[in-house]
């Protein structure tokens, strides 16, 4: 169903970045519509509006295709959080984040938060495959997973997952990206941003492994981020109320404080 509330002005923006096919659109679908469905390669970009308490959060799904790469900076402009997504079965997708996508986030807010998300964990991790700890009811999920499993898979990089959980472990794909690799990249992202590791959000908290297919960790990902951007919303609301024009003095003072806060 198309989002009818698009006309409302969102309070804050979240952006999903990452190579094509890593599952950005699927993650967003899973979270917003509670299901995993066939996606078509995203054209240009799309966004959803999520009501989170009294706030409206816009979540932008971007196109990973090279062709649309140039639009990334525009989508990231003013973003309060960026979700850098890779595919755990594809090392290149992680490398691309650093090579192509990280620089797009230059236009994001100065206090933007970054999450690193390894998707398709169901292909490598039995836990994610059976999906024991996501927000959906276990029963629903089980039948859903089973349905999905019987569908023919048309993924070139991922062979059809096994039909029975018993034989699962033998047929799991090789996990090309270990969690440590993601944690290391997170550290490099902070360095790229000139942020101090100690005063920033810990890698532990900001590196996720998810499965859009089973729902594993998907709610946790989005909800963690929503909670983290709340201060940003409040600040923005406050600013909007205080003055519709930008006060340069104020800005300088604000950023000065921020630097001070982050170095001690």
């Amino acid at each position: 169903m198309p989002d009818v509330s698009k006309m409302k002005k969102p309070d804050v923006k979240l952006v999903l970045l990452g190579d094509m096919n890593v599952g950005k659109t699927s993650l967003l679908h899973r979270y917003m519509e509670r299901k995993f469905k066939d996606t078509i390669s995203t054209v240009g970009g799309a966004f959803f509006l999520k009501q989170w308490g009294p706030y409206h959060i816009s979540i932008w799904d971007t196109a990973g295709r090279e062709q649309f790469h140039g639009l990334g900076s525009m989508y990231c402009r003013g973003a309060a959080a960026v979700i850098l997504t890779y595919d755990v079965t594809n090392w290149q997708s992680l490398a691309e984040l650093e090579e192509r996508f990280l620089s797009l986030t230059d236009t994001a807010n100065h206090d933007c938060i970054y999450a690193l998300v390894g998707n398709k964990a169901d292909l490598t991790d039995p836990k994610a495959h059976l999906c024991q700890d996501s927000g959906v009811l276990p029963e629903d999920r089980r039948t859903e997973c089973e349905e999905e499993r019987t569908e023919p898979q048309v993924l070139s990089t991922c062979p059809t997952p096994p039909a029975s959980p018993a034989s699962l472990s033998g047929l799991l794909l090789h996990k090309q990206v270990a969690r440590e690799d993601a944690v290391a990249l997170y550290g490099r992202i902070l360095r790229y941003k000139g942020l101090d590791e100690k005063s920033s959000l810990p890698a532990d908290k900001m590196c996720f492994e998810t499965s859009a297919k089973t729902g594993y960790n998907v709610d946790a990902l989005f909800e963690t981020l929503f909670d983290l951007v709340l201060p940003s919303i409040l600040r923005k609301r406050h600013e909007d109320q205080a003055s519709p024009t930008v006060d340069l003095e104020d800005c300088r003072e604000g950023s000065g404080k921020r630097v001070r806060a982050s170095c001690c």
Partner: protein
Amino acid sequence: MSVKAFELVPAVERHLLMGDKARINIECIECCGKHLYVGTNDCFVHHFLLDEVPSPKGKPSYSAQKLLHKYLGLKKPVAELRAASALERLIVLCDGVVFLVDMVTLESVPSAAGGGAKIRGVTTFCVNENPVNGDPFCVEMGVLSSRRRTVQIYMVYEDRVQLVKEVNTPEQPCAVSLDGYFLCLALTTQYVILNYNTGASQDLFPYNSEERRPIVKRISREEFLLAAPGGLGMFANAEGASQRAPVSWSEGVIAAAVCFPYVVALDENFVTIHSMLDQQLKQTLSFRDGHVLQDFEGKVMLASTKAVYVLVPLPLERQIQDLLASHRVEEALVLTEGAQRNIPKDKFQVLHRRILQQAGFIKFGQLQFLEAKEHFRKGQLDVRELISLYPLLLPASSSFTRCHPPLHEFADLNHLAQGDQDKVLRCKKFLISYLGEVRGTDAVNGCREDVDTALLKLYAEQDHDSLLDLVASDNCCVLADSVPWLEKYHKCVCCRVGSPLQGFSPAWGGFQEGMIFMFYSSADLIPLVRLLLLTGVHIFTRRPACKGQPEVDPDQVIAYLGKHSQALLLYLEHLVLERKIQKERFHTHLAVLYLEKVVLLLAESPRDEGRLTRAREKLQAMLRESSLYRVKFLENLLLERATLHGKLEEHDEALRILVHELRDFPSAEAFCVWASSGRDAAYQRRLFHLLLAVYLDGAPPGEARAPHGDGSEMEMAAVDLLNRHGEAFDAVRVLRMLPESWSLQLLRPFLNRAVRASMHASRTAKIALGLARSENVQLLHDRLKERRKPIFVSEKKGCHLCHNTFSEPDVVCLPGGVPVHVHCAAQRVRDSPTKRQLANSSNHT
């Protein structure tokens, strides 16, 4: 997923422009109100008057009337035309030169003294539709020139143009749009936003302008539509961010315009129409040789190389209804809500509500109840629209008629379900839950009767648990409809309460599964409850024995009615007298109730003789006819009767009952004590004498004197009484009353006490007498003394007894010459123990 959002209507046909000259093409158009200007490649400007022709079928059409055409004299195509209607000028770009032309005569405007009216070397220009400078008699213009990396801002006046600003750009600009201070520019390799006031520049995204023709189109305040790589239509605001998701065009788009909520784009063969609300392609029109697409004050116009067209939007409501007709509910709602800003508020609300209601019924028809409910709720549906789908649910008295035009296509539930009983059932379940939810809310203001009655009927029909809750709570069920319905579904036997009380309508009691329930509207509560209690018992008595249903247990009913004696009486009468149930319990209970009633009436003052007689008759009849009641149980009540007699001061009757009928001597004694409490000694004495007399009367000398007979029992009681309460009797009178034959021994305690008491009394009296005498002497003495000296009384002096000051000169002197208030002295005398004693004993002496 297509919608018919626009219709392509010819405006200026080929023959009006160029006749059959094949090489003449349209280059540009401008429309300003009814005035249409067309620039051609042979350096002509044509001026038309464009009229919308109203047509009976609602299909729009236009008629164009040619006013003038003018050769501009440059032999080059007219590249761009812009009207500045306040100045009555057309801004023309032709052969790299911008100049002004009179809107009416199409004559070139000569340069004013002091300033030129021409700009040379121009590749393209744009007009600022949202200028910061508010002067209505000048137009702000952004100009791009060939071979220079600058944008120039000009002010255009009636007869001159004036350069006001020049901003450098990093690359050669090739397309421009202007809003406020913001220039949106297509450079060779990217789009940027440039603030010409501050010089601040914001990169948007890369775009190869040499490969594909860029588009920069201002669509609203500080928002632009841009052609992006991959055939996207991207939105960007002045801050350089996107607030809408892009639409996906073909790669070859040459022009775009916005007609809310649609984005219209033109490529070589088609006009495509996307919704800005959901980014979907909604309509495609085939259009050959498309050349120009522009919107003029909301009117979208198109030109091929040979003719001009108007893209007429279909009325929004039509579009929405079309969507609804094909059950595309979500799209219809998106379109409706998207149009909010373009429709006056009150009109929008009406429209929105109606669409929501229709959407709700579509979802309802698809049995998607959750969505249906949400739409109904948001659309503030009159619930009766929904109820009226269900045959017979609305009360006959309801004034409801369905809204017109209808909100849905269903005649009724059966039509909707096409005989599928499961569907019918699900719809009913839905209505139950829906009505249950709305009935307490404001949504049903003005139709509570209809809603409650419908719900009651559904509950009854579906054997729903909440039926009792509904009737037990404050509700507005219509009696005339509910009763037959409930009876039909064997939910209860209803007993109508006539309306002896004014102004209270839906009141009735009903019965189900051993419980009483009732309907009421809260204002009638108290009179109703009383009425129901009196007549409610009919529920039990008039209820025919139903087959299959278990018989009501009379004991339960009685326990319940026990709290309401009048109803209980009626019910017992029903059991005992009408149904002739031979149970001792019921008979006794009834007899007791009769008796109580009689006693109660007896105690009333003044007595209602009529009622009393009737009550007595009933009691007597009962006592006569029935042989089942327990006599003993009735006897117990004599005690109460005696008490009542006592209250009426009919002591002899009371004592007679106690002694002769109950033979309860301790009670008789207690009665005397109780009846005389708070009275003086003489009163008590009279009572005790009365009791003694009753005892002695019961045992007249010479009658049967068996040791355990009546007489001796009474005698013993008399003796005990005397011995116990001797002090209360007048011994002399007692001695006179007592039979000769009684032995002195028997009465010794009494006599002892009597003698002692009389001795005591005489001695106390003597002492009191002595004291009084001495007081008298003392007073005489004081009086003699006080006569000789003055007694001072002033307002400041206090009385010794009450310590208040004196306000009057009258005082009393106590012994010793102490002045006190008159009333204080009197009080003291009254309270003095000697005086009291004296008063008491006075008659002894």
